[in-house]
């Protein structure tokens, strides 16, 4: 292999046909309110962790639904489980349980 001083760039495009939807499929069954999120961001606005770290529950839920799961474990570890997101959600998503279930899926599939 030669070294040209450049290489193929990583494709930023989400390839939905190939992405990993195991966490999504697990959480959808275990906590069905996961489906009714409208990505309004109220959870992230109030998130204790999100105010000081890159943790963004709204975005994480969206990415899990697209099968983009790299970094979910690290992101989720910042959550303090205070429950404010569940309190704030206007749609009735049980966000606290969604977080538990994402964690379970991470363990189940060793992700």
């Amino acid at each position: 292999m030669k070294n040209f001083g450049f290489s193929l760039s990583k494709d930023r495009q989400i390839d939905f046909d190939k992405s990993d939807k195991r966490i999504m499929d697990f959480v959808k069954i275990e906590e069905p309110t996961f489906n009714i999120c409208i990505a309004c961001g109220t959870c992230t606005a109030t998130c204790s962790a999100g105010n000081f770290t890159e943790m963004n529950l709204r975005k994480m839920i969206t990415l899990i639904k697209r099968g983009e799961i790299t970094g979910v474990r690290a992101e989720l570890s910042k959550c303090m489980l205070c429950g404010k997101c569940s309190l704030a959600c206007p749609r009735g998503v049980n966000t606290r349980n969604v977080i538990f279930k994402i964690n379970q899926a991470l363990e189940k599939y060793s992700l």
Partner: protein
Amino acid sequence: MNRKRVIVIGGGIAGMESAANLASMGYDVTLFEKSQELGGHLLGWEKLFPTMRMGKDVVKFLDKGVHLAKVNIVKNSNITNASKNGNLFTVSCGDGAKYESEALVLATGYDIFDAKRKEEYGYGIYDNVITSAELEEIFLSGKPLLTTKGEIPKRVGIVHCVGSRDEKVGNVYCSKVCCVTAVKQSIEIKEKIPDSNVFCFYMDLRMFGMHFETLYKQAQEKHAVNFIRGRLSEACENMDGSLLVKVEDTLAGKPLRMSVDILVLMVGMVPSEGTKKIGTMLGMNFGANGFLKSQDQHTMTSISNIPGAFFAGCCGSPRTINNVFADARSAAMMTASYLEAYDIEERITYI
């Protein structure tokens, strides 16, 4: 008794309902319909949002109104001229017949946006790209939704705002009904093919009607319909005849591509050819978007620039069915007021 006459042009919801209302008030009403059947676009619709009641129930209700009030009906009408001379409106048909009246209601409706104009979505080119109207025809026919190869689709993509909110095609307005139609049709697809996955690609979800939001939540909660915020830049055909769609998932902040077996385009409403033709014959004013223009957006709805000529329904702007009913009755009311010498602008009756 020498009854005052009203001509209503267009036999869809707006025309039928305004005709029925005017006739029931005692006017001599003649309703013109260009096709052989009354009902307009509603005839092509199986179930209606947000209640999922049958479209034909509403047609039946409208038919009853028109018949009991003894509206004169001219079907297969080919209107060649419409004009106002003095205080009389004259309408001539292709068969040589001439009709006169003291007032006129235009209810010539909308046309469906020609999806071929969004070239990048490949309608008319790629096998499995269909419009929301065609999907509705499939539902109405009772046939199953299949790909052109005869397979049950595993994934269906639904594209919102096709021909609406799009400067590129010259339609900057929202067609109002497409978002909720997408939600309704997603639910119907999931009911018919529970194993399928349905993806709606939207810019905003405009769930403005009283029960629309409930229907949307039902689509998510009960049917696991997926909503992805982002507008398609293009669709391409894969080797197996499925479609590769490209979109930015604007909530994930990343471009996304996925294959779908069938792509449904939510086609919007455009001013109908009939509206343009007859509105122009009468000298009616058109607004910037090509629909008929009322004398005032807030206070003079249904009222055209021609005294005695009124309009109802989607020839004025895209509307939902319940809005069309309200508008048709309002136009009937305004027509009757005019015939009874009430000056709506000055708010006095001349006796």
